[in-house]
């Protein structure tokens, strides 16, 4: 074939340039992608900021405040917010600004402990039940279904009332009564995960059962666990405040948001600030965590179209 056959003036047909879009951006790392998606959700960002501020308040204020928890100011008994006592004082002259910070700290500690415990326990039990199949799966499911019928709030009240208000025992009891519901959800998810090729591959390599569960199954539901953790904090705060409010949870000399609201409720018409400030702290805490969970769900979901590309 001679070169004259090709007419240099005739160009090949030009379609839309498909390569141009792909070239300019360099590949995003997983975390950049997650962060970018999360930052797009403005309420979730606000939630993070509020949560961090609350955490700082609960840690720093008890260290810096001029009033200790049991300091009584006899010149200010049950007075409203003032320059000396920003959140007012209660009938014993205790500073409400300090009380709220300490109560928030205690509520947060319980909530974080419980949520970590519940997330870990439910993830391991749920995936292990699905992976080992047979007898293990049957027995686990029977236990889970049984616990769903038993009145858990009553058990919680009995145990924590018996513990005399020790927050560590209360946390343990709360983990015990709340792990099974997420465990069942995780079990249904793990049913399809256990059929994946990489699980078979690991098994044929001779990896032990528990190791497959911990190294291959649990990390694959990681995004669900992160969301479960944040929602677990909300749930644990709610349960703990409920218990402390009716007097079965944290007891004096220890205080939590629930017990503070309980004391505030008694004087809600005469000294409303004792109710307003702990209630505000509680609401900010739960709502901010719920917004964070919402943002995380959008950010971590691979099929998410959370308003925009990437």
């Amino acid at each position: 074939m001679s070169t004259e056959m090709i007419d240099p003036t005739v160009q090949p047909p030009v379609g839309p340039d498909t390569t141009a879009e792909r070239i300019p951006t360099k590949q995003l790392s997983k975390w950049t992608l997650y962060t970018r998606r999360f930052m797009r959700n403005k309420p979730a960002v606000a939630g993070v900021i509020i949560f961090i501020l609350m955490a700082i308040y609960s840690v720093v204020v008890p260290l810096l405040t001029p009033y200790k928890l049991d300091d009584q100011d006899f010149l200010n008994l049950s007075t409203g917010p003032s320059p000396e006592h920003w959140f007012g004082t209660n009938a014993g002259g205790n500073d409400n600004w300090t009380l709220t910070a300490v109560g928030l700290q205690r509520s947060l500690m319980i909530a974080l402990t419980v949520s970590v415990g519940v997330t870990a326990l439910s993830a391991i039990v749920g995936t292990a039940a699905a992976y080992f199949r047979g007898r293990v799966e049957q027995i686990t499911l029977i236990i889970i279904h049984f616990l769903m019928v038993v009145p858990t709030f009553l058990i919680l009240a009995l145990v924590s009332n018996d513990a005399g208000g020790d927050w560590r025992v209360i946390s343990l009891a709360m983990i015990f009564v709340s792990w099974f519901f997420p465990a069942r959800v995780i079990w249904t998810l793990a049913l399809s995960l256990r059929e994946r090729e990489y699980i078979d591959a690991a098994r044929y390599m001779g990896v032990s059962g528990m190791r497959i569960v911990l190294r291959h199954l649990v990390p694959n539901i990681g995004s669900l666990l992160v969301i479960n953790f944040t929602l677990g904090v909300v749930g644990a705060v709610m349960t703990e405040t409920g218990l402390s409010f009716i007097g079965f949870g944290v007891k004096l000399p220890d205080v939590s948001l629930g017990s503070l609201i309980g004391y505030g409720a008694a004087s809600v018409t005469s000294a409303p600030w004792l109710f307003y400030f702990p209630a505000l702290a509680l609401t900010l805490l739960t709502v901010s965590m719920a917004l964070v969970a919402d943002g995380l769900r959008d950010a971590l979901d691979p099929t998410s179209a959370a308003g925009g590309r990437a």
Partner: protein
Amino acid sequence: MIKYLVRRTLGWLLMIVVATNVTYFLAWSFLDPHSNYVGRKPPMSPEQIENLLRPRNLDASVPLMDRWWTWFSGIITRWDWGMSPTGGSVNEQVAFRMWISAELVLGATIIATLLGIWIGVYTASRQYRLGDRIWQGVSIVTMNVNIIVAGLAVVILAINFNNWVGTRVFYVTGSSTEGVTGFFPVIIDALQHLILPTIALVIIGYAQYHFLQRTLLLDNISADYVRTARAKGLTKQQAVRRHALRTSLIPVATQVAFSIPGIFTGAILTETIFAWQGMGRYFLTTINGNDVHGVVAVAAFGAVLTAVGALLADIAVVVLDPRVRVS
């Protein structure tokens, strides 16, 4: 269909029996009626306490299995739920308290479900428009407000409203006023008491149905059969109501059943806030008074409420889902 419902009822009955018996043993491992008499002046001898408690089947020196059998056979043969340490009958207490709690819990559940479904339908047909965004924001806040905060906020608002109007429109304590007679006065009085705790429970309860209904309906609105219904000539409203809503109501119905224990827990707190003498208050007094039989009765009541909710959900599913009717 009848057979299906009977089978479900029997299953729930068995669950209630097991849960109640487990609670009995649990209650005994944490509560001891003897401690009610410790520190009395003049001090009581152990024999005196035992003589007092033995006729009430609350004496811990009797073997646990014997106590359990006396209690359990009493319920089976005479429907007698036992006695409190002070000698009162649990049956009498529960008989009037259960209706107080039931009207609160079931009323709040029904209103919250209907409101949630309605808002879910409203927002799903206006996805990402202003109405949807506003309800989204409102619901995420109300869902995460604690029932205690919601209850006390309602109390404060009601007190202010009463002061502003000058008469007592809403009552913030108790479930009824003493000495009200006549059909309509009683109903109006009950409503004046009932409305505030119900509002508190509905505020925190409706949002979960809103979110669930919205998600489900959005999944169904774009389905082929809804487009077919539109192509037949139905308006969008009709297509959603008759076709999309019906399928998406089924998971909501099952959700209702599983949320009833939560509402009962919420009712324990609302009854404390509003000073109702219902099962929630009874729960607190029985635990504080080491009243084993009373505690177990409360647990049984909670289990029955769950079962009633689950059965209502089952009936709703049967009505909505033709596949269940066939099998």
